[in-house]
């Protein structure tokens, strides 16, 4: 009978006649399996956890959660074998076999079946004649089987001692299942697929192989010619910096490593500007700027435009989009004011968003920084939108806002606070996640206390920042979006991705508290990142630049290769995780 599962390497041990307690600790089992099979995706190839009740011969009985096997037959089936059994040894075999192998015979006797037999200690490799392999085994012995998919070897263990590679079984092991065969009446075998620690120190064995594989990676021969490797690495780093528009860093890096940057600085800065707008949720402005700087780009990419607009709608719901943020008395078109006149309120302030719970009555006073919190200065620190990651370089948007800049009473500590505000402001959870690069839903009130920010902001997140006008604007925008979608469908045919995107976005309105709804994840700032990178890639493509930086491509390719290796059963991938090298 064989264990349920797939053919990625496996381990198991068999206690002959053991009386191990079978109180299953599912958790321990799962943890151990994860540790032992780091590269196995159980959705694709589930690991064996017990014997399969289907793949067994009728003389075999199962009990103890399908972990105990016993022989139900009345007489030994193979008389020739039986005489030996009764005299001396238990007649049983453990091993591997492919699915569909005759279940009426001991493992090793048939094609695609391998086994180690207790009566003579021989190894059987798809044949009725065995070869001397190891010692005999009998009642009370713990026998283990380990398949190593790195060097395609298989070895058995007895009572925790490796018996050495079974040379005859040195071959490919595609889709083999652990198998045990018995034919002595009353025989009982208990199996351990990881429910308990293995008697053989398999972890230590894995440690050795992990070290070997990692040494192999570390010592992988790189370019023969001197400096070739280094300059390639430098190019990768430089292109990465340029791609993500870290212009100052890119410039400094290029200078110090003596490289040419393949994109004009102005172009990088433009992209940086747009990325910052997207990442801070100011989609309206981002779209506008893109249209100004890259005319025709969005016209030629209607799907991209649609995606941006949907995101804009979401940001409206969120209350972060400039259009809704400054609503009330003023022109709803924030784009109008940007980048031309440096009106304080139109400046893309996070302060404004942080003090999001506008009371409806404050409509007219749309100046950023206005909050119900008295302690808060109304001075526009707003000019430090400081999207995270911008580092020391000044945000591009600031540059155009000369006027307002002069008003800023910014001290460096102020800047820090700004960032904090941003973090804990509007949609506290989302912004936080954005900053940290992980969706940490920090809703603890302590957090915002520490930031001296309005606590009410946390508890009273309101649709579109709470402004009635903004809500109207949002609904209007939603209708536009709907018609745009219909238009798109007529022009370009059905697009299920677009349809779903729009449906998900609209679903936000179905909940009184969209942030805590099942579709609330969309409001998370981290969702801005894919939009941002898609837009960035589209811009780069128009310049005939790669839409992905080579570094990311290399990392992606490595991860992909590992996944393919795992799928094809190439074992070394288990000890080479890309993450181990990304610190």
């Amino acid at each position, binding site marked *: 009978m064989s264990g349920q599962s797939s053919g990625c390497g496996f381990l198991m041990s068999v206690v002959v006649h053991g009386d191990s307690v079978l109180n299953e600790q599912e958790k321990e089992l799962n943890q151990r399996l994860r540790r032992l099979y780091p590269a196995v995706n159980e959705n694709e190839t589930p690991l064996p956890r017990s014997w399969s009740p289907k793949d067994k011969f009728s003389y075999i009985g199962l009990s103890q959660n399908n972990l105990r096997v016993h022989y139900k037959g009345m007489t030994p089936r193979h008389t020739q074998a039986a005489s030996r059994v009764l005299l001396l040894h238990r007649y049983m075999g453990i091993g591997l076999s492919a699915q569909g192998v005759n279940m009426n015979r001991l493992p090793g006797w048939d094609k695609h079946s391998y086994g180690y037999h207790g009566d003579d200690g021989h190894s059987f490799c798809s044949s009725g004649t065995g070869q001397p392999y190891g*010692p005999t085994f009998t009642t009370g012995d713990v026998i283990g089987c380990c398949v190593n998919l790195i060097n395609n070897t298989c070895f058995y263990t007895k009572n925790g*001692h490796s018996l050495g590679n079974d040379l005859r079984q040195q071959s490919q092991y595609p889709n083999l299942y652990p198998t045990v065969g018995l034919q002595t009446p009353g025989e009982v075998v208990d199996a351990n697929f990881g429910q308990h620690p293995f008697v053989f*120190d398999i972890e*230590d064995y894995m*440690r050795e192989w992990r070290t070997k594989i990692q040494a192999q990676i570390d010592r992988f021969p790189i370019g023969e010619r001197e400096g070739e490797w280094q300059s390639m690495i430098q190019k990768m780093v430089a292109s990465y910096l340029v791609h993500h528009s870290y212009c100052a860093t890119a410039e400094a890096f290029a200078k110090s490593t003596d490289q040419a940057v393949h994109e004009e600085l102005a172009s990088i800065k433009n992209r940086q500007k747009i990325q910052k707008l997207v990442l801070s949720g100011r989609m309206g402005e981002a779209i506008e700027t893109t249209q100004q700087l890259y005319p025709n780009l969005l016209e030629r990419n209607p799907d991209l435009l649609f995606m941006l607009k949907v995101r804009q709608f979401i940001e409206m719901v969120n209350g972060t989009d400039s259009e809704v943020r400054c609503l009330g008395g003023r022109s709803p078109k924030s784009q109008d004011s940007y980048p031309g006149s440096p009106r304080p309120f139109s400046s893309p302030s996070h302060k404004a968003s942080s003090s999001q719970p506008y009371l409806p009555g404050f409509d007219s006073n749309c100046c950023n920084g206005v909050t119900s919190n008295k302690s808060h200065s109304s001075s526009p620190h707003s000019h430090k939108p400081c999207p995270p990651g911008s580092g020391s370089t000044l945000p591009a948007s600031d540059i155009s806002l000369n006027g307002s800049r002069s008003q800023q009473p910014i001290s460096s500590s102020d800047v820090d606070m700004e960032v904090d505000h941003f973090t804990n402001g509007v949609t506290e959870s989302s912004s936080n996640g954005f900053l940290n690069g992980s969706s940490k839903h920090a809703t603890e009130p302590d957090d915002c206390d520490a930031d001296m920010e309005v606590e009410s902001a946390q508890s009273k997140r309101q649709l579109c920042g709470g402004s009635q006008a903004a809500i109207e604007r949002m609904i209007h925008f939603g209708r536009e979006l709907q018609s745009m979608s219909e238009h798109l469908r007529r022009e370009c045919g059905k697009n299920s991705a677009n349809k779903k995107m729009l449906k998900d976005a609209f679903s936000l309105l179905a909940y009184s508290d969209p942030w805590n709804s099942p579709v609330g994840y969309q409001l998370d700032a981290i969702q801005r990142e894919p939009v941002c990178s898609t837009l960035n890639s589209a811009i780069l493509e128009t310049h005939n630049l790669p839409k992905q930086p080579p570094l990311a491509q290399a990392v992606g390719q490595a991860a992909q290769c590992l996944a393919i290796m795992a799928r094809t059963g190439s074992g070394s991938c288990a000890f080479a995780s890309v993450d181990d090298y990304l610190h």
Partner: protein
Amino acid sequence: LTYCLLFEDVSVIIVLMQEVTATSRHYVDRLFDPDPQKVLQGVIDMKNAVIGNNKQKANLIVLGAVPRLLYLLQQSSSSLELRTECSVVLGSLAMGTENNIKSLVDCHIIPALLQGLLCPDLIFIEACLRCLRTVFISPVTPVQLLYTDSTVIPHLMSLLSRSQRTQEYITQIFSHCCKTPEHQTVLFNHGAIQNIAPLLISPSYKVRMQALKCFSVLAYENTQVSMTLVNVLVDGELLSQVFVRMMQRDQPIEMQLTAAKCLTYMCRAGAIRTDDSCVVLKTLPCLVRMCSKEHLLEERVEGAETLAYLMEPDVELQRIASTTDHLVAMLADYFKYPSSVSAITDIKRLDHDLKHAHELRQAAFKLYASLGSNDEDIRKKITETENMMDRIVSGLSESSIKVRLAAVRCLHSLSRSVQQLRTSFHDHAVWKPLMKLLQNAPDEVLVMASSTLCNLLLEFSPSKEPILESGVIELLCSLTQSDSPALRVNGIWALMNMAFQADQKVKGEIVRCLGTEQLFRLLSDPDTNVLMKTLGLLRNLLSTRPHIDQIMSSHGKQIMQAVTLILEAEHSIEVKEQTLCILANIADGNTAKELIMTNDDMLQKIKYYMGHSNVKLQLAATFCISNLIWNEEDGSQERQDKLREMGFVDILHKLTQASDPNLSDRAKTAMQQYLA
């Protein structure tokens, strides 16, 4: 013309030599400059000049730089910087050839550097230690120099806390200078264990490694150290667990191997049980792994030797090892160096292989010997390994004494198998090289070889005949005259085996060759084993009636004398039993009987032993009487009468009631002789 060329060559060399010495002399001259600043600069320049230049080093030594450097180093008026640079240069000189080291040691560098350790400056101390380390790890340095001044070891212990460098150098010095039980005791008494144990978890790999090596040399065959080690805690963890962690398979091989050695030595010293999981599940598998092909030849040698030592006394470990990772087959690879491939492809590799070939072979023989010392199945498995017997046979006549010794140990271990004696030993005529080995070999080889010979001379061994014909008796008789008790035992033991059920000719040969004088000397041998085997020989000689009568007719007087002496002296029960058995054999002879019957004193002794508290002695004595009164022989009536008169019948009668069934049966049989 040839002369002329030769002459030219020589002159060129002389010119070159002069140039080299000229520049070297310049360096030495600068050491004598009156300006200390210039001296310092001179030493620094010298340092840069000697790095990696063995010739320069040799030149400077010849030109007498060493005494001057030592003088500067010891002078308290020298600046610390100068003193430090001096020790650095000396350390560099020590890195050269063995001759350099010898010259340095002859200049008394060791006491000077040890003196330097008293200086408070750490940089200077480290430089001195580094140089001392280099000197002490050389095989030409007498390690005793570390122990001549009794204040040195405690001072070194106190320096262990100063820095990672002092830790590394000092532990390295200790591990190289601990060669005898006395050294172990000195280091132990000065707190080596407590001081070094914390270094096992040092952040520096080198320190950890050297500390570990220290423990391996300290624990070797030392019960006191081993017993202390098992109870030591390092950061709350038992030392044995620390060693187990160091054996993890992702650790460097050197560390795994040395940790396994530590645990092996602790186990052999009785501090850890052989069934402890850290031995069975960790140390043993680790050592088996070390024997695998993927490791360096040195590691494989050390792994095999350590494993052989670990399991020597324990059959269970031998059984486990014999099935682990195909060890028995794996060892066969040890005989394949230099491989034919290496000879063709790579001279360097061939050289390397050749250098290690002997070591590999002897290690494999040792391990086979240890594996097969108790279990018959394992012995069978070993002899069935490819060409095994041929390898042993050729190993017995190898030039390397280490290999010969290991091969004969292996043969000895296998010779404990009745089956192998009957089959493979005979098929391969192992007795031939064995006999050759016995002709001219050092004692340790002789002991093993003669012990093996004992087994080959067992009655059922088919090799017995050809060995007899090869004139072995003389050789064995000469062994009985050896100063070594082990050789005497083996010699007489082999003779005893040989005499068992032998024909008259062989027995006569033995007696003639050994000579009665030597025989009786052996009967008073201080070694009980020798005495026992000699009695055994006598007993084997005195079996079957004609043999008994013949030997007793020629040597009866002396034998009776010897028997009397032994029975009267203080001896163990076994000795007395064996002697009474001889007497019983004598009593079985036709004419020999009379030697007892006419010896009233002897009869009294027999009577005494019939009433002894030990059943074995009673049995042997009764046996003797039973032989004397046996009916069907001439003169039995007279003997029966005489013995009745002496009161033996009463004793026999009493013994028929004995609780021991053998004894009462024997007594009843004897009584029946009277009734018939």
